[in-house]
Every structure is written in structure tokens, then in C-alpha cells.
């Protein structure tokens, strides 16, 4: 990017380049943020068997814009007992921590903010420093409950960091480098080239990583901050208006960052899995666009799964969260790590290749069967009562029909 | 960026070191002292990495050292904090000046 601005004097061209990249990334995150809020509402609605936002804009698309406007106009109060300076600072800390992660996230081959050769490690590092936003927010809002919420949240994120780093290590060991770009390039070709199918350990590692990542983003089944009745909304109970939205922006950004990382590390990054060659090389600039599109789609798909998980699974208590992390995830990730190392050392390539084929075929078939079943399954008619425990309960539809 | 010599880095290191020591000397809160220590360690690290950068033969050692220092600092902070907490539990205060039972 620097050569684009070579006409400027030496320090300034670099500055301009950085600015441009920054703006691109921030705008992308902002847009994805908006889209995610909409998506969240739609998904939760669908899962809860309701429509979700429809009034604002074509399919409620403008709903998130409306929310944004509401939040901006809302009067952001701050508790007087709190430490004003820290109170204001906390959200920005959280935000910038998640934004910085995007610097080294490659959207396409070569399309990356700054191609660090410790990119994976860098992302991990930055995401780990996001904890501070949480802690400070919890502390700054003065009340003991938010402090509790903040500290619990922090403890959870910190402890989940360990298994997350382990799982990141596994594909790194397979790829042999920390540079995400090279990892991505290694996975060119059909989808069985993806690290996911490289060996059984990476296969399991993907799922573990995905679960731990959601936990470290304080979402879904692990968002205990909001869970407790007395903790209300955990560390950001006192926040309202734009500060609250910044927090959420940070949250969605870190969600996308994590899912992006997962995509690159396990799902072949910007490869659609259908083209045997590296699209950006053969197809030129169209390849790049294709890569970016594929990568973003994958990211969004994973974010969708997170949301899906959020609205379908019950929440965990704080000790259950800690217990799962330390007693289950940690040992499993250790085993996987050791397994991958052994696999790399001892398993001959032939066996590796066979395993790739087999696992890829099985997964593809499974997926196809799942889709067909979903599409063909008859939807329960409106007349059918509520399933399970709700048998015979009068539902508005029934009442409307009966009336 | 390259015409920058080793000196500015060392000066920064010195400055951090001085701030660290000042912090240790003046803070009455035990955790404040802990922070001062962190500062001092960081100052040392800056010097290490700077020298690693500008002295070719020292490159690898510098970084290895820096890494070791970081890790050790973490351990040290853990222990220090544990002690402070214990002290706090036993004496209900964290003010360093009150902790003078060991005087001669």
C-alpha cells in the first residue's frame, strides 16, 4: 500500500497509507456491526418462532440504523460516584482492542493490514488485552455489583484465553508458521485441503476453538455477566446510549475477528473449496474480490452460528463456566495439541492424505443430508399444538381459529 | 526511521527506570510499589531489545532475555500480589508504612 502514496514525502506517505487502511477496516467493521445487530434480531426472532424486525426498512434492514440513531440521541448518564475518567475510557479501550485485531487479519491473499509473521499470535495478544475494557467498566461504574460482574467476566475471559491459544497453536503447528497469510495460502485447492480435514485432532480442535472463542467474546451460553438477576447487565449496566453501543460494537468486532481467525486457521480462509487453484493468482483482481467475498461470507456464517448458539442454548452459572474451562476444555486442547504433534511426526503422508479424503467426503455427505432433511421436513401446521410440555395449552392461533 | 540511533531508546529506558524507582520510593500503597517494579522491569526490557536491534551479535540473546524477563515479571507479580493480599487480610491495611514489624 505504501507505494500507492509514494508521491508524498517519506514519513507522510506511510501515514497516508495507514490512514487509508484504517478507514477501510473501520468502515467494514461498522457496517458488519450494523448488519450483525439486524442479523441478531432476525435470527433470535426466527429461533423464537417470530418474525423479528420487519417494519423499519424492507425486511427490517434499517432496524439497526434506527437503533443507532436512538442510541446516539439517548442521554448517556454516568454514575456520580464513579471515577469519571475511567468510566469514559473503558468502552474505548474495549473498542480499540478489538479493532487492532483486524490489522493482521488477511481478507484475501495479500489483502491484509500489515502482514505480520506473528499475525496469529498478535491477534491472540490483542484480543487478550480486550479484558481491560471489561474490568475498568466494571470498576468505574462504582457499584459493587458491576464490579462483581466485571471481575467475573474478566476471570472468565482470562481463563478461556488459555484453551483458545492452545487451539490456535494446533493449525499453526500443522502449517509451521504463525503468518496467517501463508496459512491461508497453504489451504488452496478443494475443501479437503482445509486444515479442518488435515487430521482428526484439527477437526476436533476447530469445534473446541469455536466454542472457546464464543466464550472469550462473552457471548452465548457463557454470557453470565447479564445472567445473574442482581448483576443485571454485568459491567455495562450503568452504560447507556452511545457508550453502550461502543461496547456492543467492540463485542461484534471481536466476534467477527475470532470467527475470521477460525475461518483462516481451519476453513481455508479465502478459498471457496471448489476451485483447485489459488483464485487471486489466476483470476487477477477478480480473484481478490472473490477471495474477500468468500472470506467475509465464511466470517458471517460463523457469526451466524454463534448467534444461533446464543438463542438456543441455556446459560451457564459462573462456577459451571469456570469448571468447563479448566476441567474440560483445557485437558482436551492439551490432548489435541499433543495429538497434532505426534500426528505430524509419525503419521506418514499417505495416511494423512487418506484421512483428508475420508473426513471431507463424510462431512460433505452429512451436510447434504442435513440440508435435504431440513428443507423437506413438513412444518407443523398452525393447528398442531405446542410440542412437549406445552401440549394442549391454548395458543393465540388456536384461540383465533376456534373463535 | 533507520537514522535513529541506539541512544534515544536507551534514554527512554533510563527515563522509565527513573520513573519506576521514583514510583517505588514514593507510593505508599503496596500495589503502587508493585507497579513501580513493573516499570523498572520494562525499562530493562526496552534496553535489552534496543541493544538486540543495534548490536548484531547480541540480537538473539537480547530477545531471549527480554522474553525471560517478561515471563519472570509475571510470576513475580503473582507472588507479590498474593503476599499483598495476605498482608491485607491479616492487617486490614495495605499501607506500606504500617508494615514495619521487621524493623531492627
Amino acid at each position, binding site marked *: 500500500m505504501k507505494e500507492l502514496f509514494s508521491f508524498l514525502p517519506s514519513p507522510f506517505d506511510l501515514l497516508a497509507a495507514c490512514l487509508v487502511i484504517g478507514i477501510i477496516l473501520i468502515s467494514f467493521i461498522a457496517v458488519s456491526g450494523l448488519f450483525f445487530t439486524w442479523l441478531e434480531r432476525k435470527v433470535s426472532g426466527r429461533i423464537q418462532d417470530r418474525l423479528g424486525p420487519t417494519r423499519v426498512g424492507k425486511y427490517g434492514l434499517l432496524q439497526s440504523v434506527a437503533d443507532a440513531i436512538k442510541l446516539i440521541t439517548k442521554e448517556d448518564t454516568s454514575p456520580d460516584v464513579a471515577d469519571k475518567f475511567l468510566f469514559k475510557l473503558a468502552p474505548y479501550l474495549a473498542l480499540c482492542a478489538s479493532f487492532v485485531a483486524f490489522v493482521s487479519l488477511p481478507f484475501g491473499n495479500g489483502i491484509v493490514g500489515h502482514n505480520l509473521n506473528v499475525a496469529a499470535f498478535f491477534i491472540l495478544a490483542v484480543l487478550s488485552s480486550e479484558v481491560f475494557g471489561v474490568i475498568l467498566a466494571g470498576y468505574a461504574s462504582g457499584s459493587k455489583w458491576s464490579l462483581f460482574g466485571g471481575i467475573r467476566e474478566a476471570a472468565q475471559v482470562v481463563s478461556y484465553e488459555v484453551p483458545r491459544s492452545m487451539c490456535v497453536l494446533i493449525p499453526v503447528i500443522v502449517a509451521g508458521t504463525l503468518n496467517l497469510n501463508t496459512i491461508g495460502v497453504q489451504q488452496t485447492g478443494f475443501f479437503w485441503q482445509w486444515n479442518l480435514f488435515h487430521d482428526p485432532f484439527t477437526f476436533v480442535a476447530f469445534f473446541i476453538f469455536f466454542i472457546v472463542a464464543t466464550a472469550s467474546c462473552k457471548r452465548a451460553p457463557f454470557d453470565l455477566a447479564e445472567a445473574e438477576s442482581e448483576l443485571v447487565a454485568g459491567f455495562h449496566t450503568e452504560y447507556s446510549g452511545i457508550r453502550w453501543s461502543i461496547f456492543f460494537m467492540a463485542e461484534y468486532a471481536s466476534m467477527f475477528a475470532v470467527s475470521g481467525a477460525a475461518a483462516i486457521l481451519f476453513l481455508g480462509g479465502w478459498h471457496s473449496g471448489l476451485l483447485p487453484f489459488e483464485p487471486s493468482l489466476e483470476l487477477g483482481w477478480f480473484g481478490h474480490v472473490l477471495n474477500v467475498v468468500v472470506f467475509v461470507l465464511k466470517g458471517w456464517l460463523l457469526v451466524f452460528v454463534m448467534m444461533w448458539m446464543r438463542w438456543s442454548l441455556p446459560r451457564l452459572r459462573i462456577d459451571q463456566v469456570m469448571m468447563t474451562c479448566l476441567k474440560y476444555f483445557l485437558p482436551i486442547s492439551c490432548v489435541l495439541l499433543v495429538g497434532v504433534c505426534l500426528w505430524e511426526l509419525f503419521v506418514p503422508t499417505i495416511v494423512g492424505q487418506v484421512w483428508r479424503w475420508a473426513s471431507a467426503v463424510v462431512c460433505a455427505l452429512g451436510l447434504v443430508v442435513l440440508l435435504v432433511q431440513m428443507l423437506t421436513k413438513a412444518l407443523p401446521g398452525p393447528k398442531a399444538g405446542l410440542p412437549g410440555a406445552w401440549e394442549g395449552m391454548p395458543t393465540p392461533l388456536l384461540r383465533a381459529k376456534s373463535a | 526511521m533507520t537514522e535513529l540511533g541506539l541512544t534515544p531508546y536507551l534514554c527512554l529506558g533510563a527515563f522509565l527506570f527513573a520513573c519506576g*524507582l521514583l514510583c*517505588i*520510593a*514514593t*507510593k*505508599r500503597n503496596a500495589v503502587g*510499589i508493585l507497579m513501580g517494579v513493573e516499570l523498572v522491569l520494562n525499562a530493562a526490557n526496552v534496553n535489552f531489545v534496543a541493544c538486540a536491534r543495534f548490536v548484531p551479535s547480541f540480537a538473539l540473546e537480547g530477545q531471549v532475555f527480554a522474553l525471560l524477563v517478561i515471563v519472570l515479571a509475571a510470576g513475580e507479580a503473582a507472588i507479590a500480589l498474593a503476599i499483598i493480599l495476605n498482608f491485607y487480610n491479616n492487617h486490614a491495611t495495605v499501607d*506500606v*508504612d504500617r*508494615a*514495619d*514489624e*521487621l*524493623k*531492627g
Partner: protein
Amino acid sequence: MVSWLLATPGRLYVVATLLPLAACALLLVGGCLRGVCRPYRESHPIARFLYFFLGGHRPLRSGAYLATGAMALSAALAIFGLVRYLDEYQTLSPLEMHQHWVESTTWAKVETSGATAMTLEIGYRVDHLTALMFAMVAFVSTMIFVFSIGYMADETEELHEDHEAHITRPGRFGRFFLYLSLFCFSMLNLVIADNLFQVFISWELVGVCSFFLIGFYHERPSAAFAANKAFIVNRVGDAGFLIGLAIIWSQFGTFNIERIISDLAGGDPPISHGLLVAAGIGLFLGCVGKSAQFPLHTWLPDAMEGPTPVSALIHAATMVAAGVYLVGRCFPIFTPEVRLIIAYTGGITLFLAATIALVQTDIKRVLAYSTVSQLGFMMLALGVGGWVAGLLHLLTHAFFKALLFLGSGSVILGCHHEQDLMNMGGLRRRMPVTAYTMLIGVLAISGTPFLSGWYSKDMILSNAMGFGLQNREHMVLFILPLLTAGMTAFYMFRLWFLAFAGEPRGLEAEHAHESPGVMTVPLIVLAVFSVCVAWGWPLWDPHASYLGHLLEKALPGPAHGLAIDDSTHSSGWLALVVAASGFGLALLMYGTRTIDPTVWKARAGALYTFLREKWHFDELYDAVFVRPAVALGYGTARFDKRAVPPEQADAADRAVNVSSLDGVLNALGLGTMFFGARLRGAQSGLIRRYVTVLMAAAVALVAVLVVVYVGS
């Protein structure tokens, strides 16, 4: 046993010497045994038997008889040895003589790196001088033993009442003879010793015995003080002796007198002249101390505190003679300069002692000063080279001085411990034997012809005259003895007239009674000896004394030819004139009282008191030596005094506290405490203060480094 003795007659002397030691040992053991058994005498049968066998409560007389018997036996052996030696001297060759009469064994060997090992020997060497001296000492001691049996009779009581110390104490008869026999052993050992180290050992033993015997009545403060004084002054002399010994030991490597003399005689002596002079002076200083010569003479008059036989034996015949004997024995060691010193010391001593004796009133004091004077004569004789004269006078003097002292002893006993001449008088009718024997003694000492004193004193005067004539500047060495001879005659006859002539002046004098036989017999025997001991054919020739000829045979090599006789014989006549004038004056003043002594005393006035106060030597020594020493002692003691606790200390104490050693030590302690407290402050427990100090130190260190680093 006898054959063993006759094979090497030298051993005779060894046995003779050891006899008194044996007696002393026996008495000691007996006394201790009795003391041990005393507490058990009722409960334990054997202890009771032993206790009463050894004398029970009353001191045992048999102990004294035992000691006297031993002494008599050793005297007999001595005389037999003398006779045997003299006839063997004629018959045997010097080598055989050497085998018979000289023997020594080594008892210690001092390994010094490099130099040849030095050996310490015990041995004996008999020559004419030793034989004569041994016989004289043994004989006189025996006489005194017999005399003291009588004299010490009142010590035999169970509870003896001591007038002077005003206490009653158990009798100490046995102990007296124990000390006496120990003394005799050490004196005899000194005489026959062949090496200087053995001489030194017996020298010290003699000093110790004199200390015991002077301080026999130790309850009396004056006696205790006198014993102390005698011992300390002797020690001063012994220090000189030791220095001399050390020099000789280091230079010659041996103590054996014979070998030293042969080294000296043979060509280049292994000792430099300066060192030889130093050694000579050292040895002579020892003799000065022991024979009470000029600087160290003050102890002898005070030594009269001891019982009279002690004074007779130790302070007349033997011990004081040891000094002269030593000078005689080691004569070649003394270089001409040292001999001159000896002569002058002798001269001064004889004149000084004589003048003091003129005015003394106590009978024993007069005799003491006369002894000092006579010893001065002997030293003078040796100093001017008259080796034979000096030693002959030593022998003759021993006899008549012992006689005089014993005589005075019986007088004192007769007058119930009255010693002041002024309270005596007219005793010749009450104590005829004592009176007339003492008259013989007085005549002998003042040098009347045909008596022993005349022979030896005349020989001394002629040698002094010869020496004086030869080197004019030393003429005073003749004039002084001449004058003193007159004075000697004067004060001796003054004593005799005051004591025996005229009417009894004191109460005791009236009731005086003659001493018992056991005391008068020794007096008579000694009187006979003091008359005829120095006789030689032809009788009227002063130089013809047979004893003198014997002594000449023992003359050490280098001393030959030193004695210069006065060719004109005028010294003899002069001596006679001076002695006669002295006698006449004494007769007039005290005999017939034509000249009233009190008138002269008043006229002499200052001179009289000066002389009576013994030339104020005691005060001088007291001021010069004793008082500073005592002051020094107190000073250091004070210095070391325990610091007085501050609240009780007054100004002086406080001054002392600081200066005193304890003060210093305490100050040291307090100082460390003080600094300790200060340092403790530094450890305030405040972590931040530690850090600041740390920082300061770091800054300082870095500053130094920068200066060094940047500077270089």
C-alpha cells in the same frame, strides 16, 4: 663406702656439703609430719604416737642436736679433706690432682640452632682456696650451731612471750636450725661449685635463707621490714650478677670457671673488651649487693634484727664473704679498669662504714658497720691486686668477727636482750669469759701484732701502699685504709670499754650473769683461732703467715705478679702508729673518762647527727627509689581502678573514671552501644526509606562509573 670416698677424695666435700641439706630435709619432714598429725592426735592412734614422738606441743630439742651433729661431721670431713688435699698436693701430678679433686656432670642441655649446644653442669672443683674456705665456713658454722643451742633456749618453751612484738606464740626452736642448716648447705655448695650457674643458684639460696633468718621474728614489723629490705637490695645486686652471667654465657658458651679463665688466658678471648668489662662490672655488682658494699650497704645494719647467731654466721663470716670469694674466684675476668672500680668501691665503703660505726650506740650496729668496713678492706685489697691479702683477711676476719658477734650475743642474753651500749658497763666482772674473749677479738681486728688481724691487714696496707706508690694518682687508696685502721681500733675499743669497763649504767647490767658453758666454749675456741690462725714462722714477719703461703698456691694464673708489696715496710709501722693512737683516744674517752665524749659530741653537733643518721643514705634511697616506685605503683593501680559508678563519683573519681583503664574499657563498650543504637535507627522498617537509600547508592555508583567510563 669409705673406700669409695678415699678413691676420689673430692667426693668428701660433696658429702660434707650434702650433710646439712639432709639435716634440713629431715627437720622439714618431721615438722610437716607433726603438723599433719596434729588434728588427728586424739582420734588416730598412729597419728597420736607420731605427734608425740615428733615433739608434741613443745618444740623438740633433738632436731637441733641432729643439725649440729651433721654440721660437726661435715666440719670434720672438711678438715680431713683439707689435710688430705695438702699432702696429695705435694705427691700427685696436676693431672691426677684434677681427677681426684675435680668432677662435674651435666644436668641440662640447651639446644640453640646452629651454635654448639650449651650445657648446664653440677660439679665441684677443689683447690687451696676452696679447701681453706670450706674448712673455715664449716668450722665457724659448727661453732655457731653450738652457740645457738644455748642462745635460742627460750624458743624451746611451748608459749614463748615475745617482748618486742608483745604477743605470745609457740616456740620455733626447730625451725631456726632448719633455716641455718639450709643456709650452711647453700654456702658450702657456693664455695665448692666449679661453674658460675651453680654459684648463682646457691647465691640465690643464700639470699633466701638470709631473708628467712632475718625475718625469724616475723611478728616484729621492724624484722619483717628488714628482711624485705635485705632481700630486695640483694636482688638488685643479683640483677647485675645475672647480666654478667648472661654476657659470659652468650660469649663463652660455658659457665665453667676453669674453662673461662683458660679461654681468657689463651691469646684472643672470644669476648670483646667492652663486653668483658661489662661482664666484670655485672659480676662485681652482684658482689656489692651480697657483701653490702658502698651503694647497696644499707641492708646489713638493718639485718641485725635477726637473732645474733644469724648475724654472726651470715652477716659476719660467710654470706657477706661470698661476694669477696666470688671476686677472688673469678679474678682473671676483671680487667684493670674493673679492678680499679672494685678498689675505689672498697675504699669508699670502708671509710663510710667506719665513720658511721664511730657514733653507733647499739652493740650489734657497731659490729655490723665494722663488718662492712672490713669487707671494704678485702675489696680494696683485691682491687689493688693483693689477691692473697684480700682472701687471707677474709679468712681471719671470719674468725674474730664471729667471735665478736657471739660475744655480743652472750652479752645481750646476759643483759636480758639489752642491746644499747649506753645502758651497759662494768660487765667484765660479771661476765669475765665473754669480756676477755671479746678483748682478744677487739685486739685482733684492730691489728695488734702477732694476732691474725695484724697479718692480713698489714698485708693489705702494704699492697695498697705499693699500688699507691706505683701509680701516684691512686695514693688515696692507701690513705683511706690507713685512716680507717685507726678508726677501727678506736670504735672497737670504745665498744669494749663502754660494755665491759667502768660501772654498770643500766638496770639489766647489774644483774648480768655469765652465759652457760655451751655458749662460752665456742667463744674460747674462736678466740684461740683468731689469735693463731694466721701465724707463720718467723712470727714477727707479717708476710710469713703459713695460711698466706697456702693461698699463694691457689693464685690464679693472670693474678701473679699483680701484688706489689711495699718495699719500705713503712706501711706496717704507719698502721701500728695509727692503731695505737686510736686505742689511746678510746682509752682516754671511754676507759678513763678523761675526755668527756659528750663535750666532743656537742662540738661535733651537725657532723655527729650526720654520722648517726648513717649519712642519710636510707632517706636518700627512700626518696630516690622507694617513693617514686610506690607512687608509680599507686598511679597504675589508680589507673586500673574500677570505675566508680557516676552517681557516687566525686570530681577526682570522675577524672579517674575517664582516664582509668576500666573507664577506657567501659567507654569502649558504651561507644559501641551508642553507635549500635544509631545504626538501629537506620533499620526503620519503612520499605520506602530502604528504597530511597538504595536509589541514592545506585546513583552514587553510577556517577562513579560514569566518571570513570566517560572520563577514560
